[in-house]
């Protein structure tokens, strides 16, 4: 879905935003709640400039009001694959954004993300996956890497990966798989998204996400939670 249509559908006229360098920044309102909104548009690869822009926006908003509501809209083709981006330390730019989001959460901000397009690889780690809850539209494309590329890198025949991906949420692309693995809270209709967030805000924010517990319940990852608890008690 195009971000213009999505935002129109979500907020109607109660929104004010700009898009520069494929970074969306703005303010919106719904049901008497104020939201700071930010995100990545047009499946752009996340680079140094974009990460820094997102981080600065969030940091400034936290300074004004630590208890803000923040929505992160995700449509990214992954991390910027360029020598220049890596030369200047893309990993530090990503880490800066991650730190800012977690700092905001610790200060009392309520942070949610919605995958409305693609969410690939390192860019998802840098942005959307740091929210307290992650939602996805039915059309969302979530993957670490597409199967063709995975086949090239792992040297496992594509046919075998395709066959396994029918039954395995563990490595096959698809938003449904990320639901099963406990990360995406649920697949949601645009019309239901903001009412859901209003409901979420009424609950207490978790300091650590409950993805592993959800993954156990949903059967996507059967060992992760058990292992973590065994180690904590060791």
């Amino acid at each position, binding site marked *: 879905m195009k971000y213009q249509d999505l935002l129109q559908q979500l907020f109607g006229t109660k929104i004010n935003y700009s898009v520069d360098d494929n970074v969306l920044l703005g303010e919106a309102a719904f049901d008497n709640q104020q939201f700071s909104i930010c995100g990545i548009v047009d499946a752009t690869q996340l680079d140094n400039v974009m990460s820094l822009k997102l981080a600065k926006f969030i940091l400034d908003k936290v300074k004004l009001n630590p208890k803000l509501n923040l929505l992160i809209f995700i449509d990214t083709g992954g991390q910027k694959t360029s020598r220049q981006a*890596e030369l200047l330390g893309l990993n530090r730019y990503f880490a800066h954004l991650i730190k800012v989001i977690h700092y905001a959460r610790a200060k009392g901000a309520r942070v949610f993300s919605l995958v409305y397009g693609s969410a690939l690889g390192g860019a998802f780690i840098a942005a959307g996956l740091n929210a307290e809850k992650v939602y996805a539209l039915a059309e969302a494309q979530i993957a670490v890497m597409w199967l063709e590329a995975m086949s090239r890198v792992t040297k496992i025949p594509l046919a075998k990966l395709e066959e396994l991906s029918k039954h395995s949420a563990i490595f096959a692309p698809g938003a449904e798989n990320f639901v099963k693995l406990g990360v995406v809270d649920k697949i949601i209709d645009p019309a239901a998204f903001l009412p859901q967030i209003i409901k979420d805000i009424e609950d207490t924010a978790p300091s650590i996400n409950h993805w592993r517990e959800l993954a156990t319940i949903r059967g996507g990852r059967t060992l*992760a939670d058990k292992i973590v608890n065994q180690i904590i008690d060791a």
Partner: protein
Amino acid sequence: MEKLQYNLSSKKNKLSKFGITAGVVNSGNLEILLEKHDKPDEFFIEINTTVPGFAAVWQAVISDFVAKYAVGACKFTINDCGATPAVVSLRLRQLYEAAASDSKTNDYTNSRYLELNARERINALVDDATFTEIMPASNKVVSPHLGQLDLPVEFDDGAIIGKAKIAGKPIYIASQNYAFMGGAVGEVNGAKLSGICLKALKDKVSAMIFLLDSGGVRLHEANAGEIAISELIATIMQLKLASIPVIGVVAGRNGAFGGIGIVSQCLDAIIVTENARTSVSGPEVIETVMGVAEYDSSDRALVWRTCGGRHRSIMGDALYCSKQIGDIRQKLLELLNNPTSFDEKSLLDEYQLLEQRLTDNQNSHDGTDVWAIAGLNNPQQIPDLSDSDFMELLK
């Protein structure tokens, strides 16, 4: 995969250590775990191999081993990844000798960090005989996902975690086994890393230390690996918020790439050596996607100028250190004693540094351009400097 099992009679062993392993699950290599067996005059061995059809050869190698050593009441379990008979014999002997030795410590003074395995690196850096592994190989918590791809498992899934002391201070530590699946993170491996962080948070230890050596997400369980890395990052953030130092060392063979490259910059600090490399996408990935004109991954000098330890140190993203074990330990101690803060000011300072870097380097296309802008004289010569000359230059 093929499973073979043999029972052979042998005199009761006089070994002193059980639950230990030898070798690593890597192409042409194998891992053997030693456990106790309930029959005193019998040796039991189980082999899980990726190369079926060699039962006769296995039997010959094992019979030869049992003829030379008293291994009654021992159980060996092998995860094989195509080791030759010579390698199998060598590993069997190494395991026996390690189990027979009663020394508790090794002297790592003259060891090279790069050449040590994941467990040895921990033992080399922490106070003598203080490392206690949590969820060790003998617990056999292995990946449930590799089997369906006909790939061998490793008993620790490539993540070594536990408690230890540095200069008497209690720390928790995690070390990535670069030799098993490139140190990459999957469901089990990642849960071990998150688990030890959450334990550090609960027990309020003096520091959480990561010996990173990984290409990032294990593609064979890609989604689980990516999620595990995000979960790890969330626990690292909790440690930072609780003012527990989280420190990394990137000085191994694989460096820190992909999600682990991101993790490395989430820590309070990372110590790097000359051979260290770290970024998000590795040179091979960028070359594959963008073409050789963008990034020639076979040009080692270019790779080091783009993501090497010296480059990262000059930019301020890492702390440079010599390859000496003692020096790396000393650097760890300094960081333990000087915790960094995680607050609005530290984030604003970092913002300014990163903003300035972009402004200054609009026309930088090579490490040497960045170093010149950083004010270093003769940037072309920096890769050739000795460690001590380079560290002098950084001052």
